[in-house]
């Protein structure tokens, strides 16, 4: 245990995902010895991210205004809607350059063991968007693991009676992996070879 501010910093860092007590201590002492200008910049972006970044009111991607960059882009089509778990998955798919439609960010996957059911995700908002009738194909790009697949199955079950084509990314994505770790080529192929569900 250290005294005062440095211990507070270690405690706060230790609450971050993936940061153990040893890493928290290492980062805290790194910050302590860093250039004051660097630390000020870090503090500024930390404050700014909470103040300015919000969720797009349409797709729930991160945005700096009412709507995100992708929802505002007039060159993109509403005919294709791609459902992902997290904003980082939008980034991964955008990197492939394969997709010209829009997104819907669920905010996670259905995971009953963690107490997360459909009502804890933005499923109702998705159904409301589909009600407009503009979407021709719904692409389910949840993670290729058990929770992601189960979430895709659940959404497909809801959407299919609406007469919208529902597709899933092709295999080639290894089961158990995170979408964000797929390289552009694999993810691009998975997109091209998507199959109806």
């Amino acid at each position, binding site marked *: 245990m250290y005294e005062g501010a440095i211990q507070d910093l270690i405690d706060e860092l230790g609450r971050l995902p993936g940061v153990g007590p040893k890493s928290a201590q290492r980062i805290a002492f790194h910050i302590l010895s860093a250039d004051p200008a660097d630390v000020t910049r870090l503090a500024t972006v930390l404050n700014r991210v909470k103040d300015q970044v919000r969720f797009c009111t349409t797709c729930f991607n991160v945005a700096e205004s009412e709507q995100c960059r992708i929802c505002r882009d007039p060159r993109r089509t509403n005919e294709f809607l791609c459902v992902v778990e997290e904003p980082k998955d939008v980034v991964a798919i955008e990197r492939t350059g394969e997709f010209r439609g829009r997104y819907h960010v669920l905010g996670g996957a259905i995971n*009953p063991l963690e107490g997360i059911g459909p009502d804890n995700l933005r499923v109702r908002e998705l159904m409301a968007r589909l009600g407009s009738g503009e979407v021709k194909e719904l692409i389910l790009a949840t993670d290729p693991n*058990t929770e992601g697949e189960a979430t895709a199955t659940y959404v497909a079950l809801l959407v299919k009676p609406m007469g919208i084509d529902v597709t899933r990314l092709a295999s080639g994505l*290894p089961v*158990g992996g995170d979408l964000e770790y797929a390289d552009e080529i694999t993810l691009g192929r998975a997109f091209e070879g998507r199959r109806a569900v």
Partner: protein
Amino acid sequence: MPGYRRQLYRDDAVVLRVQKLGESDRIITLLSRRHGRLRAVARGVRRTTSRFGARLEPFGHVDLQIAGDPNGNIGGGLHTVSQVEAIQLYGKRFLDDYPRYTAACAIAETAERLSPIEREPSQRLFLLTLGALRALAAREHAGTLVLDAYLLRGMGIAGWAPALAECAVCGTRGLHKAFSVPAGGAVCPDCRPPGSAHPAPATLDLMIALSAGDWTVADAAEPGARRECSGLVAAHLQWHLERGLRSLPLVDRTTGEEQK
């Protein structure tokens, strides 16, 4: 670390829960045949180059080699999965069947809660859990029936199965009409506490059939009896667990009745 020996040990196990750890690792909660409930780290499995990832998805029956001290964790930290082979990956069979997926989640969470102490072997619980996942995957019976049978028998292993064919209070044999969760199950007219439920006789018949593994009777049960049975089983389970199960209210029972 003094007194700590890191060694390899091997066992077969059911994967109960998978949680992300750091950038690309996972913590796997396992119910093993000989070493009870274990938690082990699987390194790098979320990278797309990992061959292990698919084998360590929830609800699989796997053969593992684990590095760690099989007798304790004093100063040893988390064990790590060093090798894993699939015996039967039941999780794959639930991916296109949402109600069965939610039932599998409730089975896994119950297994975890019925094995509160890590590394305390319970072969009965292991075999019951493995059997339930196998039955769920085989799709021979409704998912909700498989789940309720598992919960009833799991409570039996824990020592708090509801009394069904005798009075929970005085032990008088016979089928009693009242059911009281706090009293411990079916109760006779003399022992019946105020506020007891009065389930349909068919509901108690179903609960007896599920406890005994009499699937001919269970499969023939009407939707009303199934629903009432699920309600009583859930209430009995929640009464005995300190905290409620998170997955049980999320079990999708809507299509469970239509699909066999």
